[in-house]
């Protein structure tokens, strides 16, 4: 019976009998071991485990990491962390959370305290899933809860670090603030790194660099007793601190800019024209980011979000304003570069400019007489710029405006930047479904009409004039470092483009700007320092007819003011500029009268700081610590 598949190799079942007998024994022993272990767990230890399952006391607890520090350019810490205490309820069984909240409220009541809980907690708890009842409790509450722990079973105090914003209001638009991650933010993420209750940056640098600042949560496996107190730590994974961020902001200069704008509504941007670093960026009115630490109360939130003056908005990057006469530098550069004028080309200003049957007035009703480029800039003659604007046409103007960085995002490392608006024929046809009118070109050439710029763009454009034509990306983050000091990422200066205007033309405009400040009849005399080292341009943008939305209109009406915005943009020192400054004060009047004095304070503060830092100084405390650590 041996076929091709027959019993090859003398195969015989008897051959294997012994091997299979051994296998049977092994398998029986193995299954017996499992069954005995099962009996041990379920029969002998069954009651014990039943008890443990009923008050399952082992739980995983997340340990929040420390967020990274934020430092200014001189490594002064402007955002740190401080210990805070949360009131947490750890249920040992399923209960209605509302009942617990009522109990805590009644407990607080005895000492005249009240529960500050805005989150709408409802429903049943899950065993050993902690519920945060109140964030960042006061010392009085902490002492009270800790000494009466037995009265509130399951309610415990947990340490949770919160942000400490030493800059307060003056830095809040740059730094932003943090808060608990929202459901929407959580859904947008596809990693497992973040969970409910985790802290995330909500605006400013905190948001922009959240991935670096956040760090990584640790975890802890703990056994808790019936009151929710940890009795034994069973395992631990340390959290990883977030990276530290070094900004280009100079905290002292920021402070000076904030003080210069004190009581006004507006914004100031200070930039280093040599590399695009932002040294100060202020927006007023402002808000205190520390408010968000305890989970901002509904009252505070409503006050901030419904304020008609929009304290939460960073006007320096999100505010869009008509540039007014500061725009004349762009018009002048375009006309020179296009060869339409020379510095000696003169126009006669009799106080108005006629186009068809319309008349466009110069701000100087009596007229400036014959003006050349220099006089036109110094005295800000509107008629001169009406003439050259008309010669250029709106599309050429738009081309040069874009080369100065207007009409597009500057690329600053801050969220919610707006691009502003550079109008052109095509734009109007697309957006307004109407052809362009020549009269509109006339308005645009003195920075009125549809033109909109952000303060950061304005500072950047003047920075380009200051440095001879290089347009930098405004840089606010210098570098990111790990908590051990290792450099994680460097943000080098980035030259975006070069103005399409030859250096000698730029020099002519620079001279004009120097005249604005330092010559007789100049509109920016508020900046006339003894050193005669500032060059700048005033601007006044008419608010009436502002093409802005409902929000701006409402703000205007509520403020009861219909005054113009005051603008001033400048750079200093004239020979080798180190700062470019843009200031806008909303609804305040003329640029020379209102914005220029603000800029003056900032420029003075800059040179004062520079002088005091150059002077030899006593060794600072920080160095001592470092030396000691090194020994």
């Amino acid at each position, binding site marked *: 019976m041996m*076929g091709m598949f027959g019993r090859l190799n*003398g*195969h015989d079942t008897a051959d294997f009998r012994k091997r299979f007998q051994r296998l049977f024994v092994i398998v029986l022993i193995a299954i017996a071991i499992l069954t005995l272990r099962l009996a041990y767990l379920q029969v002998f230890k*069954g009651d014990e485990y039943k008890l443990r*399952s009923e008050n399952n006391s082992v739980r995983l607890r997340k340990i929040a990491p420390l967020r990274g520090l934020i430092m200014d350019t001189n490594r002064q810490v402007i955002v740190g962390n401080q210990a805070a205490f949360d009131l947490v309820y750890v249920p040992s069984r399923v209960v209605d959370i509302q009942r617990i909240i009522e109990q805590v409220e009644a407990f607080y009541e005895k000492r005249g305290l009240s529960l500050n809980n805005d989150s709408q907690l409802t429903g049943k708890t899950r065993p050993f899933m902690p519920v945060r009842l109140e964030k960042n409790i006061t010392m009085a509450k902490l002492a009270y809860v800790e000494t009466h722990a037995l009265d509130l079973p399951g309610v415990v105090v947990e340490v949770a670090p919160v942000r400490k914003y030493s800059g307060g209001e003056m830095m809040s638009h740059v730094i932003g603030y943090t808060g608990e991650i929202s459901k929407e933010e959580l859904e947008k993420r596809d990693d497992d790194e973040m969970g409910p209750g985790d802290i995330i940056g909500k605006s400013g640098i905190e948001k922009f660099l959240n991935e670096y600042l956040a760090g990584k949560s640790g975890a*802890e496996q703990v056994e808790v007793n019936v009151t929710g107190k940890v009795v034994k730590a*069973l395992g631990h994974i340390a959290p990883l601190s977030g990276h530290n961020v070094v900004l280009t902001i100079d905290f002292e200069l920021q402070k000076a800019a904030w003080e210069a704008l004190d009581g006004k509504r507006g914004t100031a941007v200070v930039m280093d024209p040599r590399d695009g670093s932002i040294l100060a960026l202020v927006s007023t009115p402002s808000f205190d980011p520390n408010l968000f630490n305890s989970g901002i109360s509904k009252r505070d939130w409503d006050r901030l979000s419904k304020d008609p003056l929009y304290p939460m908005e960073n006007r320096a990057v999100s505010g869009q304003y008509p540039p007014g006469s500061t725009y004349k530098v762009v018009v002048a550069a375009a006309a020179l570069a296009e060869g339409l004028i020379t510095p000696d080309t003169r126009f006669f200003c009799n106080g108005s400019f006629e186009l068809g049957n319309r008349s466009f007035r110069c701000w100087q009703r009596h007229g400036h007489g014959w003006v050349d480029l220099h006089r036109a800039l110094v005295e800000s003659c509107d008629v001169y710029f009406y003439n050259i604007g008309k010669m250029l046409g709106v599309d050429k103007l738009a081309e040069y405006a874009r080369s100065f960085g207007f009409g597009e995002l500057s690329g600053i490392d801050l969220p919610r930047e707006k691009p502003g608006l550079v109008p052109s024929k095509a734009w109007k046809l697309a957006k307004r479904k109407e052809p362009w009118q020549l009269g509109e070109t006339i308005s645009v050439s003195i920075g009125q009409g549809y033109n909109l710029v952000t303060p950061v763009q304005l500072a950047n454009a003047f920075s380009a004039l200051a440095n001879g034509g290089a347009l930098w990306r405004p840089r606010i983050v210098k570098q990111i470092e790990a908590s051990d000091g290792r450099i994680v990422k460097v943000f080098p200066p980035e030259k975006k483009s070069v103005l399409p205007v030859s250096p000698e033309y730029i020099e002519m405009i620079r001279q004009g700007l120097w005249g604005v400040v330092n010559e007789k009849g100049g509109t920016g005399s508020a900046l006339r320092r003894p050193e005669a080292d500032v060059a700048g341009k005033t601007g006044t943008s008419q608010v009436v007819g502002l093409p802005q939305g409902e929000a701006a209109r409402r703000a205007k009406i509520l403020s009861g003011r219909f005054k113009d915005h005051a603008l001033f943009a400048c750079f200093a020192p004239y020979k080798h500029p180190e700062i470019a400054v843009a200031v806008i004060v909303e609804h305040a009047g003329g640029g020379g009268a209102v914005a220029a004095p603000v800029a003056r304070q900032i420029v003075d503060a800059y040179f004062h700081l520079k002088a005091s830092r150059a002077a030899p100084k006593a060794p600072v405390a920080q160095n001592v610590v470092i030396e000691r650590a090194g020994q």
Partner: protein
Amino acid sequence: MKFDRQLLINFDWPLLGIVLTICLIGVMNIYSTGFSLTAAKAPLYLKQIQWIILGLLFMLITLSIDHRILVQYAYVIHGVAIVSLIFVIFYGYTSHGSQRWLAFGGFSFQPSELIKLTLILALARYFSDHGTQSRYSIKDLLTPIFILLVPFVLVVRQPDLGTALMLLIIFISMILFVGIRIKDLLIAGSAGLLLVPLAWFFFKDYQKERILTFFDPERDPLGSGYHIIQSMIAIGSGGFLGKGFLKGTQTQLKFLPEQQTDFVFSVFAEEWGFIGGVVLMILFLSLILWGFKIAQYSRDLSGTLIAYGITIMIFWGVFINIGMVLGILPVVGIPLPFLSYGGSSVVVLMMGIGLLINISMRRFVMQP
């Protein structure tokens, strides 16, 4: 190939009966783990039923082709499976940090599951060619080692250490069964131990971490350590009679991790108690002993080796998985055969059972 009446008469109904009973328990158990989920897209237990039906179809294929033909093409089949493993490197998608799935339309498949079966086939081919009269020396085993090593390395780098371990265990079990010289066994054992530190250099950091955790769960007290504690509480609290179907608090309150996969036995033991546990043990024991009986009475050596290999694979799956959830073995990602949720695993197991039935019903047929 004509399908003889004889074969139908000899069809191994008891084996199929045991397997389907275990599968049924598995589906019921998976139903329980998903019970507290409110809005699951497709309930997992329904998907498991689909996989079992698909597995039964594949079983029909493996039981209708004479196993001797499969043995004849064993190397080719193994080679194809290895190619699919290589495919995973380029086209596979990653889930839970491991790249081990291939997608076909709506399905996804784990070639590393299939490789277990083809490894058994290939080894059966080699050892049936070379007989079992005399014990093997290491030199004789170079080809089998090669047969193991290629897929082993591919699976380790996915990384799927549980399956890699299973391949190694299947291989060692086969070697011990066909017989190896004691001296050579000692040499191979010590050589293997020496190779470990060498291989260490080729691992990535996270792989090292995984391997360390494998040997010492305390390294990861929040992962596997936590799992084991919760698993033991679940099993122990089930007591003698269990808490009842859908009433396991550890399961329903989600204290128990990986309920549908690695810790599926804990769910069962919590709800059905020691009684349920013993019933399941008896079912597995019957399946394993039945498998060995088929191996013993196979008409040819290759049948014996295939049946032995498949049965020992099931045995180790049961022993390691249950030993792990009972807290007597380290936590490794080895699923419980037929009970853990997993499409590829179920289909491959069913194919294996098909082979067992195949060998079983042909033991009386002498002529091809």
